[in-house]
């Protein structure tokens, strides 16, 4: 289930962290989810590459303090828009499930 939402999670983490490299994105996800998401860390990288290929992220190479080459990712405008859309869909879904599980009827949207 988590894998199905990986793109949204990565976009959200990058929106919160600003520009970040893969390791920092994973740390951001762990910190913000309270360690709830325990994916193999390596799966983040194909997701980062895929999102970049889709134009939702951009990347640049920098040199870390350690002297190693580091790839830093940033959300593009299209990425920010995509995240907003996914947030809205998620909220709608979450409200519906919350209403269902909590016993309350979800707020009806006017026709």
């Amino acid at each position, binding site marked *: 289930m988590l*894998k199905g939402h*990986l*793109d949204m999670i990565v976009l959200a983490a990058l929106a919160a962290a600003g520009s970040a*490299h*893969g*390791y920092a994105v994973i740390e951001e996800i762990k910190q913000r989810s309270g360690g709830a998401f325990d994916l*193999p*860390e*390596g*799966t983040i*990288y*194909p*997701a980062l*590459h*895929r999102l970049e*290929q*889709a134009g939702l992220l951009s990347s640049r190479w920098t040199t*870390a303090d*350690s002297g*190693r*080459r*580091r*790839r830093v990712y940033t959300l593009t405008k299209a990425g920010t828009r995509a995240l907003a859309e996914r947030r809205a869909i998620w909220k709608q879904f979450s409200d519906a499930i919350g209403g269902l599980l909590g016993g309350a009827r979800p707020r009806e949207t006017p026709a």
Partner: protein
Amino acid sequence: MIQDFIQDYLERLAHELDFDRSLSRCVRQEVEDHLWEAVAADPAGNTFESQSRAIANFGDARAIAAEFAVLSLTRHSRRAALIAVLVIAGVFIAMKARVAWYAAMPWAVGDDIRAVSAEVMLIDRYAFLSSVIIGLVGWIYIQTRNIPAAFDPAYRSQLRRFFLICRAAAVALIVSVASDAVLTALRFSGMEFSATSLVSILSIAIEIACVGILVFQIRRIALRATSTAALMQS
């Protein structure tokens, strides 16, 4: 000695990603930075245990390579579609250059040859037009698909459709180029070979090379798809 542990993993990952050399180099650098940062953040410091923890948390090299293989296949499919469109444009330019050359030369064509040429020309025209339309459809089709996260059945059928479109475009282009070769042969039949006929032969050679590039690209993508499928199954 300790350093070899991470280096071994990186070698293994780079080897698994060998299907795409530039991707392999890039991913290796990213993962190297990741693993050493994970080791640096480990309270145990740089030890065998911290390195194996970093590698275990990162995941199986083959599984990660398989996810990248899907991305690589998508990128190369899109590139192949663009090459197909460029190849068709190349054939068109060679065709137009030859026609312009014929118009500039004072060559007379016999009535019997003219009649046969008209029929071949009709085949040529429709075959080329079909290759343009089918090639553009293929390019638009693959460009407008979402980038898949996995080599799932939906992506497989998407690839199958793309291959079918590419093959159809290639067949139409082969018919068109073969018609051009026949037309050129008819025009020069009974004539002595001269330096001026070299222009026509060269333009046909360019067209054949363009078709060769297209066939090579289709075959390359098909092989890549097969190796990606094999990587996903293992």
